[in-house]
């Protein structure tokens, strides 16, 4: 790998120990993955939650601070393990608030914007076409690559901050334009398109659709054709959440939406290969996806969650509309997740009061994935959700069981305590 003179100076320690440490790692990464060169980094997004990083991660960040590390590019951060605004509503394990606070302190010193959001691409870190990212959070990186045309891999949580401190990153994977070429084709039945999305169904439908595409493409770049015209931001957000629990990479060429794929041919770099691997998605595929995503047939639910990825303000309005004048059933926890900035907006618009009066909780800066869920819910807990990502990541030995449905199904479950799927049956 060819290093510039400026890269060499950083590697030699001329800009301090944090930059040197970062460059040593990035150089090893570039050499291992056969990069020709490093490129300038434009934006960074870091892992925040103590539950995932543990003490090793906390000490890593604090060491970077001690070495004088500073982020050289706009840097935001992912959700944390706790809802600091609603401390009394959850039973956090001993030591969690202190550890999570130390992570925030380290971030302040590193110059990270304390957004604690999994949707930086919709808020305080919106990259432009062709800009280079070092982002944790697959759903965000997926959206930024696929919808905005920015460039970035599903970045490792160690490498991301080091790239931000160095302001450079090796040109590997999706950072290299020559690797941004479609490898398989996904076609959507026009009859299905007419039934996709709409009020109360956006997140459920497009999150499931993303999983179908991601499971098929796996570690290839899919070119997706036949999507509905004028897809909404929230629908694209839900679909791109497939990037990590289904799609290994973070680029789906969405024909007519992705700036690098105005046509199917362009998605494949000029010509569709004759023997291209194809997937046809119709209503039956969707019905099976919904069925598969429920890993219990129990009707009685304990928890209802919506907001993975975090809710936009318009989606919070949608929840309020779906609830109407109804109340959440006693004994059911209805949790809606968003970040602190959107929460302030929702408060200002009177939406928080409406949700609170109905018995629902709009949380801030956290979700079931980041929270110490094993201390909160056991395998007997049944959670209804309209997020494929949450359902997939928070499942397995000792973890809760899930019902998957639309937001309408979830709101009805919160009101009645019974999950009864209404869609794709």
């Amino acid at each position: 790998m060819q290093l510039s003179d400026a890269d060499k100076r950083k590697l030699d320690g001329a800009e301090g120990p944090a930059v040197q440490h970062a460059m040593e790692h990035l150089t090893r990464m570039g050499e291992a993955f056969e990069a020709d060169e490093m490129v300038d980094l434009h934006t960074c997004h870091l892992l925040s939650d103590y539950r995932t990083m543990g003490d090793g991660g906390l000490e890593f960040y604090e060491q970077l601070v001690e070495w004088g590390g500073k982020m050289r590019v706009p840097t935001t951060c992912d959700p944390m393990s706790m809802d600091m605004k609603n401390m009394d509503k959850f039973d956090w394990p001993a030591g969690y608030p202190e550890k999570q606070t130390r992570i925030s302190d380290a971030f302040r010193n590193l110059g990270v914007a304390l957004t604690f959001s999994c949707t930086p691409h919709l808020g305080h870190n919106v990259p432009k076409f062709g800009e280079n990212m070092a982002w944790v959070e697959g759903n965000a990186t997926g959206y930024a690559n696929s919808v905005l045309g920015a460039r970035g891999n599903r970045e490792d949580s160690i490498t991301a901050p080091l790239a931000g401190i160095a302001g450079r990153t090796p040109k590997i994977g999706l950072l290299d334009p020559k690797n941004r070429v479609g490898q398989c084709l996904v076609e959507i039945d026009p009859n299905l398109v007419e039934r996709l999305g709409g009020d109360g169904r956006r997140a459920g439908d497009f999150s499931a659709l993303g999983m179908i595409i991601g499971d098929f493409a796996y570690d290839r770049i899919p070119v997706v054709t036949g999507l509905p015209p004028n897809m909404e931001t929230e629908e694209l957000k839900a679909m791109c959440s497939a990037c990590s629990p289904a799609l290994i990479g973070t680029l789906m060429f969405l024909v007519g939406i992705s700036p690098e794929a105005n046509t199917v041919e362009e998605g494949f770099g000029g010509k569709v290969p004759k023997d291209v691997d194809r997937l046809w998605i119709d209503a039956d595929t969707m019905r099976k996806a919904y069925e598969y995503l429920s890993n219990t047939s129990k009707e009685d639910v304990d928890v209802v969650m919506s907001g993975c990825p975090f809710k936009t303000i318009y989606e919070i309005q949608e929840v309020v509309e779906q609830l109407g004048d109804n109340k959440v059933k006693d004994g059911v926890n209805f949790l809606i997740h968003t970040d602190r900035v959107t929460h302030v907006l929702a408060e200002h618009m009177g939406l928080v009061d409406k949700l609170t009066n109905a018995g629902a909780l709009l949380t801030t800066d956290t979700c079931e994935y980041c929270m110490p869920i094993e201390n909160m819910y056991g395998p007997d807990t049944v959670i209804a959700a309209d997020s494929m990502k949450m359902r997939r990541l928070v499942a397995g030995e000792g973890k809760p069981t899930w019902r998957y449905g639309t937001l309408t199904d979830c709101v009805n479950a919160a009101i009645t305590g019974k999950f009864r799927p209404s869609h794709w049956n």
Partner: protein
Amino acid sequence: MSQSITLHGRPISKGVAEGEAIVTDKPLSFIAAAITNDEGIVRMDGHPLQGKSVMDKVLVYDTDIYSTGAGLSFLTKWKINKSTPRAIICREMHNIGGGFTIYTGVPSIDRIQEGLPWDFISDGDWVKVDSEQGIIEVTKKS
């Protein structure tokens, strides 16, 4: 006498380590929610390795799926809990696996020239990974 096989691959994280193999052809994630930090036990829903520990093993898997948080979870496993595998072999190393093995110095290797790693390595085989040279020595379990 046990059968021995020599394989060749692309070195990712340089080093030498050996141990008993634990093998899957499926993807894995090292996030704390998917492989426990304290004992390295796989908890992924329906995964063939569910309930098994990867600690102190030579781990063979496809590539890294799920959360980007895996890197810092792996760092905690390595630094605090000492629960990581001794070496990692992937069909195709994701930059996530590359990041955490390079940072911690756990030897890793991918792109086996002879074919898919699970066609040559099985659970219980003794495997020496030399990712300085890009060589894997497999002693089949007798």
